[in-house]
């Protein structure tokens, strides 16, 4: 199973999105079908979604996106760009390793001598990183693509949408990240103050269960194996 869309409502995309894409030069009919194809092609999040919501170009009061995020949206389309999953995964793993200290040392040593005209040799490939998510009391687990998210905030938001429990707010982060979270939160029910019923935990590569939010996002990504939304009462020994 892949991560579920919060909703496959094509109307979430702004009309402006279509106009900023390269639809110029075509005939009128051509442009509108390009536009409608965009709405089909870019559902609100990753994974396949029904194209039955092929919409007319109805703007909605939803999220506005710049042309920049079109490319980000493109990365949400499953199957594009057409690069073998094996290649994407292997480049992502190599990119991770390139971050190790040993490499940085070697690269730094040579950086001053290297010709700077070439692009940075290290590959930046955002492959998918699907991890399983289970929630106490919910028999069916889900999967979430962590590489499609940028921060603990978006992770908490995604999980909130996924398990649709507005009455049981999820404690997603801790300490300072909590403050950013409170400011950015569009849904007050995700606010955390330790009094909520659930906490978000993860299993790291050593098999230990940790509370989410203690380490920088990048390090979290490199060690997380799976997630669990635990009842606070069950999450003993995790240092709450």
């Amino acid at each position, binding site marked *: 199973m892949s991560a579920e869309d919060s909703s496959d409502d094509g109307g979430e995309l702004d009309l402006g999105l279509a106009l900023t894409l390269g639809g110029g030069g075509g005939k009128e009919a051509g442009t509108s079908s390009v536009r409608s194809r965009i709405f089909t092609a870019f559902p609100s999040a990753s994974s396949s979604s029904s194209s039955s919501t092929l919409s007319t170009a109805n703007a909605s009061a939803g999220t506005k996106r710049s042309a920049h995020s079109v490319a980000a949206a493109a990365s949400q389309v499953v199957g*594009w760009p057409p690069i073998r999953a094996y*290649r994407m995964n292997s480049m992502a793993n190599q990119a991770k390793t*390139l971050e190790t200290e040993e*490499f940085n040392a070697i690269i730094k040593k040579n950086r001053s001598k290297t010709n700077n005209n070439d*692009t*940075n040799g290290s590959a930046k490939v955002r492959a998918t990183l699907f991890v399983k998510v289970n929630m106490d009391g919910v028999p069916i687990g889900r999967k979430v693509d962590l590489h499609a998210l940028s921060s603990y905030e978006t992770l908490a938001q995604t999980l909130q949408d996924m398990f649709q429990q507005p009455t049981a707010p999820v404690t997603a982060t801790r300490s300072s990240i909590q403050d950013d979270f409170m400011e950015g939160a569009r849904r007050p029910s995700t606010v955390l103050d330790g009094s909520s019923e659930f906490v978000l935990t993860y299993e790291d590569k050593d098999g230990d269960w940790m509370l989410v939010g203690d380490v920088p996002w990048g390090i979290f990504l490199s060690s997380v194996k799976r997630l669990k939304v635990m009842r606070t009462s069950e999450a003993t020994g995790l240092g709450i």
Partner: protein
Amino acid sequence: MNYFPDEVLEHVFDFIASHRDRNSVSLVCKSWYRIEKFSRTKVFIGNCYAISPERLIARFPGIKSLTLKGKPHFADFNLVPHDWGGFVYPWIEALARCRVGLEELRLKRMVVSDESLELLSRSFPNFKALVLVSCEGFTTDGLAAVAANCRFLRELDLQENEIEDHRGQWLNCFSDSCTSLVSLNFACLKGEINLAALERLVARSPNLKSLRVNRAVPLETLQRLLMRAPQLADLGVGSYVHDPTSDAYRKLKDTMQNCTSIRSLSGFLEVAPRCLSTIYTICPNLTSMNLSYAPGISGAELIKLIQHCRKLQRIWILDCIGDKGLAIVASTCKELQELRVFPSDPYGVGNAAVTEEGLVAISAGCPKLHSLLYFCQQMTNAALITVANNCPNFTCFRLCILDPMKPDPVTSQPLDEGYGAIVQSCKRITRLSLSGLLTDQVFHYIGMYAKQVEMLSIAFAGDSDKSMLYVLNGCKKLRKLEIMNCPFGNVALLEDMGKYETMRSLWMSSCEITLGGCKTLAKKMPRLNVEIINENNQIEFNPEDRQKVEKMYLYRSLVGPRNDAPEFVWTL
């Protein structure tokens, strides 16, 4: 021709290798059919669900070499759910049960279990070659069984598979008396391996011509391996990290100088900058180079390396080489036939690593170029027209502009004219992939000119059903058509249903076809399997015919609907 004894005809048929030619031979008359049937040793099955193992064995009882392909091509890009199918076990089980003298098995995009590998290893005493490409479902335990039981193994070639690594001692499982290895490729394995076992294996394999190791094999080991196998023709390097001042570096340099047979180089799965000068001695002899898995090599280093490689015929590379680097390739590699440029940053915005300029330079400098896979940020009509004029010999032309539906940045026009020039000029194109902003017009050109095209991949293109109709009507040799995110619907799908029986398969995802359309097709064409992939229960319990179908895969089959389809696959 009945006055030739069978043995003479058999001998003549021995010279006919191509399966298509052999198919033709078997249609001449009954006795030719019979003789060809018993003498056929190599069989290629492009879709494992088009025929059953039993019928294969009945048709060609003497089969020794089998090639099978499973999942549809778009499975490579995560479009096909994990448990869709493509299991090899029933094939191995049937071949074993019927005591077929299997010697070679080549699989692509199939699910291979450890159980299948174990059965394979125990059932065919003369088994010689196992090639697995883009497969999954097995672990190093399965490899251990193959190593242990296939005493005459010549080839174990694992390309881009997802293998669960149990960090076992599978390399140790090759018996000491196994000395027949010619080709060993385990570059895609993720875990540690027993380096001593590898060294011993290489030492006792005098016929070893091809060795591709994984990341866990460090440079020191590589040097020792090369010492033992100076006859290698194909080398895949694992980890290439060393300190230029070290002893290991000096030793490697010396050893490399003796490796005069190496013609093909790949790997560099981990590489430290400025290590590549040790490779320069073998560069002048290289005909094939794959550095597309080596993100640690900078554009500048790539350029320096390429300048030593005048004989290259095949290059797979990352776009960090840049347009300037491609110009260097164009001026250095005059023998170039196949070029693949992969993106180092597929989701990046505005990082113009390679553009149309690089491709134009290559087309101008490399007259023998006939196969291209090119990922880039942008393309212009003018560039494509120039490329078409420079290189009329393309057989495989695959262009991927990373930003879907991007027009010509100079003129803001669709790229119809550019691709039109390509198909008009390159009369021998058999494989074509399109991208960028494209209207119905480009398909009009394709239908008109691309008469030899056998495989066509389309995404985010066309305005209406007309596009698909142009292709179905015009491309007489079409075998595989795969379409994603295009506005093609039932009218196009149902216009010429008989066409699909002349093709291997059709894939359509995120198009406009409906359940009703697919049902109609399935009803009228009993020899097609029309499969709907219904993930996430998009189609509810009582689906309506006018509901759109997200993913459809249809293929011709002699054996009807398959019995191993998972719940989410409906065969209509």
